[in-house]
């Protein structure tokens, strides 16, 4: 344990500066909303993000691996403990860099907004919370950051709380399926996000409390995981881990908790890019990776872990498959990208879960995929935001004429889709190859299905990315409106963002494992398949004959019915039960007890007839009864 003040100071500055730098605009907007000078204050907020970025870079290059601790509640063995290791080093920079770039983009994207104080406060609070999650080794500080993510997510999704602009909605307005209207407003989206996430956070909170009660520490690296599992047995371990993983599952939008992520697209595009693709939703997978990193399931033959990791593996793959085919059917720009994000998160879970059989390398592969995905998807979201601004349309539209006016966006989309889909020799190809390798290893262990599911997902994934490119820039309809403006800051931001993929390509080429895997025949064959599907989709982005299937997929296979119909019914049922119970309690205390006492009281007073002789008889009788009773008691052996 390292007690170095220098690192602690840096870390706390990194967490605090973004929040503090967003306070001026937040306060200014309360008292002077919309004034010209107030609209300059966001530059200060972005400067705060920049400071965090510098500190995270310093940690990347200059701080040694280790745990940095500062006393908090020493009597309970709860301290601020921060970790610098392989995962947090890169994840920290990734978070800070993407937040900063999107912050720059947001300066232009949000400049005419009506609620800047709210936006920047939650945007920067989000960044601070995410950094806290990334660097926390102590589960309590991690939980604080984790709840900060949920809160910021609610605030930002519902940012346009007036629900007065159709462009901010998700789904076609007025489209009814059965009793439901498949259209969601920002305020509804915010509520749905926080309620789904809280549904997972509660069990996670209890799991953390249980861990603390059982082992007396909350530092992930010092919890004796295997002793703990031995102590609570098979069912206890499975139960505890699933309670804990409810947090990551809901936050990372795995089935069946995916709907909130789709309606989260009602928030500003910057929010979708930062929270709902690159970082916050990845926090669930990141936490799973961090846990696995220290649990080291590959070192133990614990049956409970086998069960849990198998479930996570398949849940991840199935979510990935679901997300991919739903994305294939969708035509809403941001929702398509959201579904694809869910798909990628599923792959990250699956690959990390494979670490039980393969070892630490599976987590490293998942983590690299997380990084590639973050930059590529953030770029695509920023482009989508620009497109929505330029066309005033949430749905894909754009032809070659339009793409000439949007050259930067077009180029960035090409790079991002090529680098993300796994086409050789671009970045994701090498990482995906390693992932193919992981799943192939599983097949050698006798679990064949994951490999084929992964190939299938990869092919579909590549297809919808190409579809996104094609429908927006090449073979889509001509946009109804065109307001192509000189959005230099936005272009700059997503250009830098996408160029990070080249740096990652350079980094990947120095990782022997990825290079070796990329040169295997299987990997190359998968790469060819992916390329073919990409080209086909590029040429034929929509097929009329499949339009009915498309509608089924656009409606997300009617999963909204679970969230908007079945669960509310359960909720109303519980409300009815509670109502009856309430009435029962009311009746018991306000009717039953008083009338019972009333009855007894009248019974007691019934004796009072006013006749002395009858009173005398009663009293004499009682006295006789008592004396006889005492006599009998004495007869049967008084002590």
């Amino acid at each position: 344990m390292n007690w170095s003040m220098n690192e602690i100071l840096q870390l706390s500055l990194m967490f605090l500066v973004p929040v503090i730098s967003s306070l001026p605009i937040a306060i200014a907007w309360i008292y002077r909303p919309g004034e010209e000078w107030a609209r300059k204050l966001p530059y200060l907020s972005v400067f705060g993000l920049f400071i965090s970025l510098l500190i995270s870079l310093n940690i990347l290059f200059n701080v040694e691996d280790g745990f940095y601790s500062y006393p908090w509640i020493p009597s309970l063995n709860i301290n601020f403990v921060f970790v610098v290791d392989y995962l947090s080093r890169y994840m920290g920079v990734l978070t800070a860099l993407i937040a900063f770039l999107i912050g720059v983009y947001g300066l232009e994207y949000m400049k005419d907004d009506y609620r800047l104080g709210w936006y920047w406060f939650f945007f920067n609070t989000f960044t601070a919370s995410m950094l806290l999650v990334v660097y926390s080794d102590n589960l309590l500080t991690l939980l604080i950051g984790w709840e900060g993510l949920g809160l910021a997510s609610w605030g930002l999704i519902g940012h346009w709380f007036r629900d007065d602009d159709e462009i901010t909605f998700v789904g076609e307005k007025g489209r009814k399926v059965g009793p439901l209207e498949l259209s969601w407003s920002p305020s509804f989206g915010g509520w749905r996000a926080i309620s789904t996430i809280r549904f997972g956070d509660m069990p996670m909170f209890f799991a953390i409390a249980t861990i603390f009660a059982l082992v007396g520490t909350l530092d992930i690296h010092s919890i004796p995981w295997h002793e703990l599992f031995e102590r609570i047995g098979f069912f206890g371990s499975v139960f505890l881990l699933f309670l804990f993983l409810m947090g990551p599952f809901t936050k990372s939008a795995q089935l069946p908790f995916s709907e909130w992520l789709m309606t989260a697209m009602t928030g500003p595009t910057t929010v979708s890019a930062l929270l709902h693709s690159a970082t916050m939703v990845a926090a669930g997978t990141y936490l799973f990776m961090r846990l696995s990193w220290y649990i080291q399931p590959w070192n133990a033959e614990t049956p409970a872990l086998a069960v849990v990791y198998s479930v996570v593996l398949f849940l991840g793959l199935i979510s990935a498959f679901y997300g991919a085919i739903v994305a294939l059917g969708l035509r809403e720009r941001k929702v398509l990208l959201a579904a694809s994000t869910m798909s990628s998160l599923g792959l990250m879970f699956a690959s990390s879960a494979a670490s039980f059989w393969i070892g630490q390398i599976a987590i490293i592969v998942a983590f690299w995929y997380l990084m590639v995905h973050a930059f590529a998807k953030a770029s695509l979201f920023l482009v989508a935001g620009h497109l929505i601004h330029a066309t005033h349309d949430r749905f894909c539209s754009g032809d070659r004429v339009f793409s000439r006016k949007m050259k930067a966006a077009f180029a960035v989309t090409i790079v991002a889709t090529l680098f993300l889909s796994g086409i050789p020799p671009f970045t994701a190809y090498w990482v995906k190859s390693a992932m193919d390798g992981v799943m192939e290893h599983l097949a050698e262990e006798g679990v064949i299905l994951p490999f084929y599911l992964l190939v299938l997902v990869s092919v579909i994934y590549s297809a919808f990315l190409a579809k996104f490119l094609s429908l927006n820039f090449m073979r889509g309809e001509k946009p109804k409106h065109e307001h192509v403006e000189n959005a230099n800051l936005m272009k700059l931001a997503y250009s830098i963002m996408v160029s990070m993929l080249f740096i990652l390509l350079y980094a990947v080429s120095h990782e022997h494992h990825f290079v070796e895997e990329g040169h295997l025949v299987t990997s190359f064959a998968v790469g060819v398949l992916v390329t073919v599907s990409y080209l086909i989709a590029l040429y034929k982005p929509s097929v009329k004959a499949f339009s009915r299937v498309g509608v089924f997929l656009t409606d997300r296979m009617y999963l909204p019915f679970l969230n908007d119909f079945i669960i509310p019914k359960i909720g109303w049922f519980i409300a009815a039960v509670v109502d009856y119970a309430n009435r029962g309690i009311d009746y018991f205390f306000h009717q039953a007890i008083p009338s019972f006492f009333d009855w007894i009281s009248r019974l007691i007073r019934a004796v009072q007839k006013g006749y002395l002789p009858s009173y005398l008889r009663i009293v004499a009788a009682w006295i006789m009864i008592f004396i006889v009773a005492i006599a009998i008691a004495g007869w049967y052996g008084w002590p």
Partner: protein
Amino acid sequence: MALMALELGLTNSLLLISIIILTLGAAFSIKDRRIGFIASIIAIVVSVASLTAETYFYGVFVAAIGLLNIFCLYISQNQIKGIDYALVALMVLATVWVILSNNFAVILATFVLVSVPTYVLVLTGEKDLKLEVGIKYITFMVFATVLFLIGSLLLVFSSQVFSAQASPILYIIGYVFLILGLSLEVGVAPLHEWVPDVFAAADAIPISIVASLAKIVPFIVAFKILIATSTPLTESITLFTAFLAVVSMFVGNIGALTSREHGRVLGYSTVANMGYVLATLVAIVRLEFVYLAIAGALLQLFANSAGKIGFFTAIKKEGMGSPFTYALALSFIGMPPLMGFWSKLFITLSLVNSGYLWLAVLLVLNSAISVPYYLRLARELGKGRGTGIVNLIGLLVTLLVIVTLYPPDWFLQGVKGVVVMFGISGISGIS
């Protein structure tokens, strides 16, 4: 020893002097009833001067209650004007005397001394004699006195002549007779039938004396005799007392809930309060905690007296200032820092210490049951902010129950000193 003898001698002579004063006062009140009034007050003050340090607070409370009774009589009319003051003063003397004396004959005499004056008082009224009420009351009192005296004699006899182990039957029967006599005398259920009728039909002022001053002596006599004659047998027979106490609490409190007449409500309230006080007799099984029980019992009797005097005066004068009625109601309910809270606290503590946790729980439960009717009384009898003579009495009784604003450890310590001398000379027991 010599000093103590001298002190006792002084006490006795002071009591004797006050008896002479009140007798002369009563005789001369035929000329002017104010002579009886003043003589009675002087007699009470002289009797208070006879008190020792430990019994000082007790005596002041008793005197205060007696003076309040006299004052209430002074502002109302009856057929024996002048004599009535002397009767109350006589009861005060008996009540003071009983705490000081260890003489068996004197103790029994005080029991009769507080009982008999009430026979006369309960008959009196504003216009006519309350004959029916009087007959009901006197019949049961005679019955009660006989049972009580027989019980006392049997108890003393059993511990004097035989040892109690040798003759358990005699002890048990004596105990049961004494408790039954006591119950009938003060109005413990299920021997309470006379209470609601008499309380509702009698004149409010005389009955307030029956409900207040007359209740104290029987319990002290019972404590003294039971402590003096206590044997290992007491522990098993005590359950009988606990049973009567519980029945009385429930019958009193629940009966009061639906009673409409205020006098009747107060009658049931008395039944409940006598249940609380009777419960303290179980504490004799652990003599080291009996001082808590006696302190609780006495405070409960004082709080009950103050409340009854206040409420009956309010009935008589058709209303009293609502601050006073609410203060009295809250004291009855047991709201800190009023006297009713401390008395119930001490009683509860003594019950818990004697191993009667269930009885303590039931007592607290009963306090909750009593809330509605006390608040109803306070609301219906309390009118306005209050002025006039009736509110002077309201103010005085409120002062009496609010005196425990200063936590009554002082009273507890005094009782602790007195209890050491509790007992009857010549009889084994605590001394």
